[in-house]
């Protein structure tokens, strides 16, 4: 069993406090990196519910990010609807799509690489579909018009406002993710991942829990999509539906530790700052330097620590424990 550190709640409280006061001391650039860390942590937590807990690896999660980003942005730019409401409409649409994708794939028993391929194909199809819908800007995409500082329209002067929005979203996502995994639903998801036939034999409705995980994950990802659109103020089919965002959504969950509550957060926390700094330093002469870093880390992690950072930490802790207990045993005898 995973027993938390004795002082882990103190550590957590300290980190949270630091996260909340960061914008008071940090400059715009540092806050920007903070926003990116939190955004990718949030997306990875959302992906992890289907990909990590239930073990169904979607390689096309940008489909949901795109739906969220496009729905709220379209409603905002064309009808003036605030993204605070638009994001939930996008979430609803993504949830419906998540149900549809989950139902189709799991009903036909798609697993592993075949599920991954279908999700890629769906996201790619969405790229080309939206490319050809002129009402949402086609390949040009949509620009979120700057209306000045308007918190009610999810637009802030400076980066701190966005930082707090994504901070709260991330906290809620981690809370939901850790709450889900402790519930019956969470155990059912893990049982599906570990041994689907056995879970089925024990009476778990595997089709239903997989579809539910798909819906929850899709809604959360779409809400993140709205934030992405508001923060970067520009979206196009490639940068919200494409392969790039699909991979970035799952990257940090895999590197941090698949199927764990904190893995996705740790992955983003460790990797995003390094990547952003390297982009800042090398970006002028070496476009793509940060993705190069992501690719290299991904390959190394798969080769040498396939359970990610959190998995490695737990393994080391387990070894320390057994080492200590064997030492105590020898002293006693």
């Amino acid at each position: 069993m995973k027993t938390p550190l004795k002082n882990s709640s103190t550590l957590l409280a300290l980190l949270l406090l630091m996260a909340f006061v960061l914008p008071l001391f940090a400059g715009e650039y540092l806050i920007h990196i903070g926003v990116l860390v939190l955004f990718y942590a949030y997306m990875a937590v959302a992906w992890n519910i289907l990909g990590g807990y239930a073990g169904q690896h979607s390689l096309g999660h940008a489909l949901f990010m795109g739906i969220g980003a496009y729905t709220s942005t379209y409603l905002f730019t064309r009808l003036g609807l605030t993204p605070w409401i638009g994001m939930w409409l996008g979430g609803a649409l993504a949830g419906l799509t998540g149900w549809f994708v989950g139902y189709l794939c799991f009903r036909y028993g798609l697993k592993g690489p075949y599920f991954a391929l279908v999700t890629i194909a769906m996201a790619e199809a969405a790229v080309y579909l939206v490319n050809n819908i002129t009402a949402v800007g086609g390949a040009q995409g949509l620009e979120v018009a700057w209306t000045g500082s308007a918190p009610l329209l999810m637009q802030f002067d400076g980066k701190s406002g966005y930082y707090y929005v994504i901070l709260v979203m991330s906290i809620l996502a981690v809370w939901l993710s850790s709450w889900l995994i402790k519930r019956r639903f969470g155990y059912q998801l893990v049982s599906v991942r570990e041994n689907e036939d056995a879970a089925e034999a024990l009476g778990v409705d595997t089709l239903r829990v997989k579809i539910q995980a798909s819906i929850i994950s899709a809604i959360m990802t779409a809400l993140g999509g709205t934030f992405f659109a508001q923060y970067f103020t520009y979206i196009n089919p490639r940068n919200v539906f494409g392969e790039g965002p699909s991979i970035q959504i799952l990257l940090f969950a895999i590197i941090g530790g698949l199927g764990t509550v904190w893995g996705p957060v740790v992955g983003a926390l460790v990797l995003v700052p390094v990547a952003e700094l390297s982009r800042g330093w090398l970006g002028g002469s070496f476009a793509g330097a940060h993705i190069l870093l992501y690719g290299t880390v991904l390959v190394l992690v798969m080769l040498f620590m396939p359970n990610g950072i959190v998995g490695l930490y737990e393994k080391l802790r387990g070894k320390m424990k057994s080492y200590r207990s064997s030492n105590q045993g020898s002293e006693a005898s």
Partner: protein
Amino acid sequence: MVFSFELFGQALVTGILIGGIFALISVGLSLIWGVMRIINFAHGEFLMIAMYIAYFLVVKGGWDPYLTIFVTAPALFLIGVLIFQSTIRPILKDPSMNQIMLTVGLSLILQNLALVFFKADVLTANTAYTRLNFFLGPVVVRGSQLIAFVGSGLAAFLLYWFLQKTETGRAIRAASINRDAATLVGINVRNTYLLAFGIGSASLGVAASLMIPFYYTSPTVGLFFGLIAYVVVVLGGLGNFPGALVAGLIIGLTESIGASLLPGSLARVLTFGIFIIVLLLRPQGIFGGKQK
């Protein structure tokens, strides 16, 4: 868009010719996927590298594009072997998702190395073959595409013959059917995998040299061809060479006829639609049935 028989004839010819290239790109993936059950998500990026090699030989070295095959194919074989030894071999027994993630990582590395070295520019090699056109009535047949089609057919046939008729080919097929049984009858499965990965990569070298007179190269060119290769392999059935040829033609025709009927790039939605339906209903491919 007005539909006419000329337009349809043109789409038919282009679709068949492009379909041949799609098939050649896919047989390499099919071989690797079929033999070691690993989907190489860097397949398209291997092709991209081969296209850069061919491009520079043609443009900077003044080579005949078709002579570059003698460099691109061995180079890709070598790259394939090196990448297999260093990264794929250690994870052969890992869960399929780790294998996918590793090759996704490889594709990110290759794509962005290309971006670093060659910048995002789209490069086209203007060769003597590029403007070689024949006319079948109102239909234009591009000479470079015709050569690519014939060359693809030849290369795919050669590979098929090698797998069916030679001792080494039989060993590769045996290892793909049952790894343990192959080991028992004295086949060195490790070397067989290495060879299959090398050959699967080398076929992309051939494809790249055939394509360079009529197709551009850029760091992201592999993205599209990689996806097309997954579609063709699944449609034709895993490890099924004749199936891949037919599937290549089907997708080539879908793309070209779709492009003449549908506005913009909507034809591609059709391609992915077919892919999704086949994955859902017949993941063993349209000709499958023997495989479970």
